[in-house]
Structures are given as structure tokens and as C-alpha cells.
């Protein structure tokens, strides 16, 4: 029944993947432009705006996504896959476009952050409903021996959505000054407006699609579920498979996915201090070169089973995360760069950024904040930021204390080091492709057609959204508690992936369910 010869499957994959890619793009641009959005909508010093900002970040990812999975999963099992994921696309695209139209806090006051929060919650809700529908739809069109391969196209969309979002933002940003980009009606809004064009095209394509053949058959026979939530989570036999999917596969996949694609980027920017554009360039290369492996591992899972590919992806993360992130820190030690390039260092004039005067009882301190650009012979460079203190005593004597620990920012890597970092990012995304590529086929095969959308959407969004989305929060928490270890934040994804590996290895079966028509 599930399209045994795969006829017309290219169109099915294209239309499903394009919409899902756009939904991920919409979801990411908000996160990537968070700093600018924060300045425009959530001004510092306003407690209510700060509260709304926190809600926009945490509630959209953690609370609303699983809720969206339940709402739209239920709809998808009751009224059909096609109409449901068309609805999620309209909601996502519409809310993204509207975020780009909201005037800033300075123009309309508290209405601005409130509207942004509302639309961000709609985005989270829509994202929660999209993936399960697209994965189910493609799987239900796929022949048995290619289910992993065909659904792996859907799996590329989360990464490609990130790729497109990064690319669009970089393109807009590189064509205008920082001031034009960040102003109230500046370039940061363009990626939001572009969304409406992408969504329009995708809706047009999706409208031409027909309903999933398995679902249509079920509907014709009057066998669709009346209460998918009750059947998914109220019946022990199915509920125990939902729990197994979550703890034995999806939670590990979520942290591997998030660490490779997001935490790495934020670590390189905020801890290692690599220059903004070079950091994005490294990520774009890493993602671009690793993305085809989603298809490779998806196809491989049709031959050797889903289980061990996913679990080995998690295990590689557990083993290699600390060595990789440790290399990031070790290789960007500016003092070592200076030693190696001692004979060829060029500097610009030191610029004083700010002067702070502190009047004490017996003296007056003047703190001079300055920065200086250094260019080294191997093509690398950095900005040295110093805070030197001059103390003027009551007797008029001046004592100067040079900053003994200057901060180094805007590091630019030499060409060879850049390619080494690209390789390391590529390796981490390769782990993502292993853990993530077979998961759609794995989840589809775990649940019956009549409650498939509901049953697979919830564990997926808890694993990906909650376990994965918590990586930066828990990393900050661990870093605040154990200040001497810059890599301490990695223990969270390592721990979750290790736990998931143990549960998956012991409890999951590697058998491919050939018949998903039931």
C-alpha cells in the first residue's frame, strides 16, 4: 500500500521537506537575531519587558513545542496529515512575517514585547506540529526498503534551515553597516520578511499534494482514531513505546543535535571569542560538508537497521565532545600565537574606548579601557582589550598599574587553523547525522497509522526541544557552579547521551518493521 515502487516520491519529499525547512528557518532567525530583537523589543532596565523576553525564549521552546505536538498530532490523526501540516506552515510563516512588522518598543511601548511574545509562542506551537506530519507523510508514501532514505530528506531540513538562516543573515549583514542593520526598521527585519515569500511558495506546492495513502485508506474504512491522545498515552501498550522512544532514542539525539549545531557555535563565539563572520563561515562549511551524510545514514539504516547507527552517533559524541572542545580552547591561545609569530606582528594604534574615574578618600583612580588590533604573519589576528589603572595620590604622585590579564576578542584564525576547526565542526555534525538521520523512520515504525502523528510528535519534541534546548541553560548552570572548568557545561549532553545510549542499547530492537500499514 505504501507506494511499493516509490512513484512520485520525489515530489512528495520535495514538498514536505521544503515546508519543514522553512519552518526551521523561521524558528532559527529569531534565535540568531536575539540580541538585536532584544534591543528593539525588550529594553534593558524594564522588568516587565525582561520577563516577557525570558518567556519568549523559554516558553516557546520548552512548553509550547510539546503542546503543539499534542494539538497538531491529534488533528493530524483525526482530520489528516496534509491539512494539518498545511495549517502549521501558515501559522509559522504568518507569525514570522508579523514579527518583522512589529514597531519597536520606542514606538509602541509594552505592546511591542507582548506582540512578539505572542507570535513567538505561535511559532513554537506550529513547529511542534510540523515535523511529525512531514515525517509521517513521507514515510507513508515510501516503499519499505527505502523508508530510512526517503525520510532522511526530512531530517536534513533542521540543519538546512539553520544553514539558510545563517546564510540569509550573513548576506543581509554584509551589505549594510551595523547601524543600518540594527536600527528600528533596519536590515534585521529582512530575514523575517523573506519568510513570507518562502512560505507562499511552499503553501502553493503543498496545496497540490494529496493525502497520505495509508491515512486515506484508514479514513475510507472508518478506522481513524476518535481520541488519539487517549489511545497514544492512555493505553499501556502504546504508552510504553512512547516512553521507550523518548528515553532510548530521542533524548540522546536531541542533545547531540543541539550540541553539534548550536552549542558549538555559541562556544566558539562567547568562550573562544572567534570573530563573528569567521565563526559563521566555519559553521556554514561544517554544516554544508556534513549534510549529505543524513542521506547516507538514512539509506544505510534501510540496510543494517536504525538502532546502532543512532546509538553510535550518540556514543561518538560522548567520547569526543571534551577532546574537541578542549582543542578549540588550546588552539586559540593568543600567547602561543604571539610566540610562534614573534618576528611578524603588526599592530594598529591603540584606541581608548572609555575612561572611568573613581574618586576614593586618599586618591583618584582613572581606568582606561582601550583596544588594539594585532595582525600576525600567519594570517591570524585578534583584538587586545586592556583596562589600565592610573592612581593619582593626594600628593599628586601618579602610579600606573598595567592590566596584567588583557582580554582577547575578535580572534581570526589562520587558514590552516580555520580548516582544522571546520573539520571538528564537521565531525560533530557527522555525529548529528548518525543520531538524527534514521529517527523519523524509527519513530514511524514504532506506532500504528491511526495514532502515529500524535504518538511520534510528543517524544520527538520533548527529546529535541526540551532535552536539546536545555543545553545552553544547563551549561551556564554548571559553569556558574564549577568556574574552573570551561568545559564543564558539556557534562549535560554527555550524560544525557550516555544514559540514552545505555537504555537504547539494552531495550531497543534493531528490527525494521516492514509493515507500517497497520
Amino acid at each position, binding site marked *: 500500500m505504501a507506494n511499493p515502487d516509490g512513484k512520485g516520491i520525489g515530489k512528495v519529499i520535495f514538498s514536505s521537506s521544503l515546508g519543514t525547512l522553512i519552518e526551521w528557518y523561521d524558528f532559527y532567525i529569531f534565535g540568531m537575531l536575539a540580541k538585536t530583537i532584544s534591543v528593539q523589543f525588550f529594553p534593558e532596565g524594564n522588568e516587565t519587558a525582561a520577563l516577557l523576553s525570558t518567556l519568549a525564549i*523559554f516558553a516557546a521552546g*520548552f512548553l509550547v513545542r*510539546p503542546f503543539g505536538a499534542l494539538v497538531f498530532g491529534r488533528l493530524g490523526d483525526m482530520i489528516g496529515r496534509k491539512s494539518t501540516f498545511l495549517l502549521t506552515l501558515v501559522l509559522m510563516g504568518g507569525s514570522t512575517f508579523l514579527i518583522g512588522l512589529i514597531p519597536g518598543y520606542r514606538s509602541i511601548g509594552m505592546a511591542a514585547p507582548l506582540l512578539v511574545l505572542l507570535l513567538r509562542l505561535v511559532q513554537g506551537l506550529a513547529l511542534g506540529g510540523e515535523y511529525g506530519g512531514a515525517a509521517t507523510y513521507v514515510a507513508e508514501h515510501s516503499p519499505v526498503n527505502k523508508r530510512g532514505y526517503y525520510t532522511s530528506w526530512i531530517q536534513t531540513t533542521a540543519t538546512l534551515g539553520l544553514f539558510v538562516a545563517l546564510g540569509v543573515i550573513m548576506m543581509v549583514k554584509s551589505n549594510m553597516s551595523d547601524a543600518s542593520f540594527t536600527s528600528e526598521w533596519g536590515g534585521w527585519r529582512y530575514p523575517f520578511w523573506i519568510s513570507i515569500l518562502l512560505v507562499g511558495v511552499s503553501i502553493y506546492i503543498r496545496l497540490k499534494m494529496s493525502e497520505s495513502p495509508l491515512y486515506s485508506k484508514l479514513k475510507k474504512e472508518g478506522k481513524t482514531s476518535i481520541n488519539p491522545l487517549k489511545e497514544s498515552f492512555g*493505553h499501556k501498550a502504546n504508552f510504553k513505546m512512547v516512553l*521507550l522512544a523518548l*528515553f532510548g532514542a530521542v533524548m540522546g539525539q536531541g542533545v547531540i543535535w543541539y550540541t553539534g549545531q548550536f552549542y558549538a557555535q555559541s562556544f566558539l563565539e562567547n568562550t573562544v571569542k572567534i570573530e563573528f563572520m569567521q565563526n559563521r563561515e566555519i559553521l556554514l562549511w561544517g554544516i554544508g560538508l556534513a549534510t549529505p551524510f543524513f542521506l547516507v545514514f538514512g539509506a544505510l539504516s534501510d540496510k543494517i537497521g536504525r538502532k546502532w547507527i543512532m546509538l553510535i552517533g550518540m556514543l561518538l559524541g560522548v567520547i569526543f565532545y571534551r577532546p574537541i572542545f578542549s582543542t578549540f580552547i588550546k588552539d586559540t591561545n593568543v600567547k602561543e600565537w604571539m610566540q610562534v609569530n614573534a618576528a611578524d606582528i603588526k599592530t594598529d594604534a591603540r584606541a581608548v574606548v572609555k575612561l572611568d574615574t573613581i574618586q576614593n578618600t586618599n586618591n583618584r583612580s582613572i581606568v582606561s579601557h582601550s583596544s588594539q588590533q594585532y595582525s600576525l604573519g600567519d594570517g591570524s589576528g585578534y583584538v587586545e582589550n586592556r583596562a589600565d589603572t592610573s592612581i593619582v595620590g593626594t600628593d599628586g604622585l601618579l602610579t600606573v598599574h598595567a592590566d596584567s590579564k588583557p582580554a582577547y576578542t575578535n580572534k581570526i584564525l589562520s587558514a590552516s587553523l580555520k580548516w582544522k576547526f571546520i573539520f571538528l565542526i564537521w565531525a560533530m555534525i557527522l555525529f548529528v547525522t548518525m543520531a538524527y538521520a534514521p529517527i523519523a523512520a524509527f519513530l514511524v515504525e514504532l506506532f500504528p497509522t491511526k495514532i502515529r502523528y500524535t504518538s511520534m510528535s510528543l517524544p520527538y519534541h520533548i527529546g529535541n526541544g526540551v532535552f536539546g534546548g536545555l543545553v545552553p*541553560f544547563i551549561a*551556564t548552570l554548571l559553569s*556558574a557552579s564549577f568556574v574552573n572548568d570551561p568545559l564543564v557545561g558539556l557534562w549535560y549532553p554527555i550524560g544525557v547521551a550516555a544514559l540514552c545510549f545505555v537504555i537504547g542499547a539494552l531495550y531497543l530492537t534493531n528490527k525494521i518493521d516492514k509493515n507500517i500499514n*497497520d
Partner: protein
Amino acid sequence: MNQLKRILGFVWMIFAPVVIYFLVMGAVHNIDSAGTKDINKPIPWIIIIAIFTPIAVGLMIFGFYSLKGEYDKLPESSEDL
């Protein structure tokens, strides 16, 4: 293997409340009105504890099913569900 699954079922049942305990203690130690980071604000903790509590309950149920031998043999097809 089934014996090991059953023993681990007990471990998962214990592990779930331990996670919630550490989250609550983390909230108590880190919420600070003078702090500026997300971990110092109450809202993220309320959201995270609210969402993690049912997940931890799910892990307990998973452990309980495991202890009872529900995962000794997985269903072969949807008809077994």
C-alpha cells in the same frame, strides 16, 4: 538481558526523583534577584521544573514497566499494541 533490564528498571525509578531534587535545589541556590543571568531568574526554573516533572514521572513509569518485565519482549507489529 531481561534480568538486567529489570534491575535497571529500579535504577530508573530512583533516578527520576533524584533529578527533580537536584533541579529544585539548583533553583533554590541560583535564583538571585541581584543576578543577571537566566539561571538567576525564577521564570526559567519554574518552566523547566514544570516541564521536567512529568518527564521524570515518565522515567519512573518507564522504570516500573521495565521492572515488571514489560520490555522483555517488544511488540512485533502494531496489532500487538
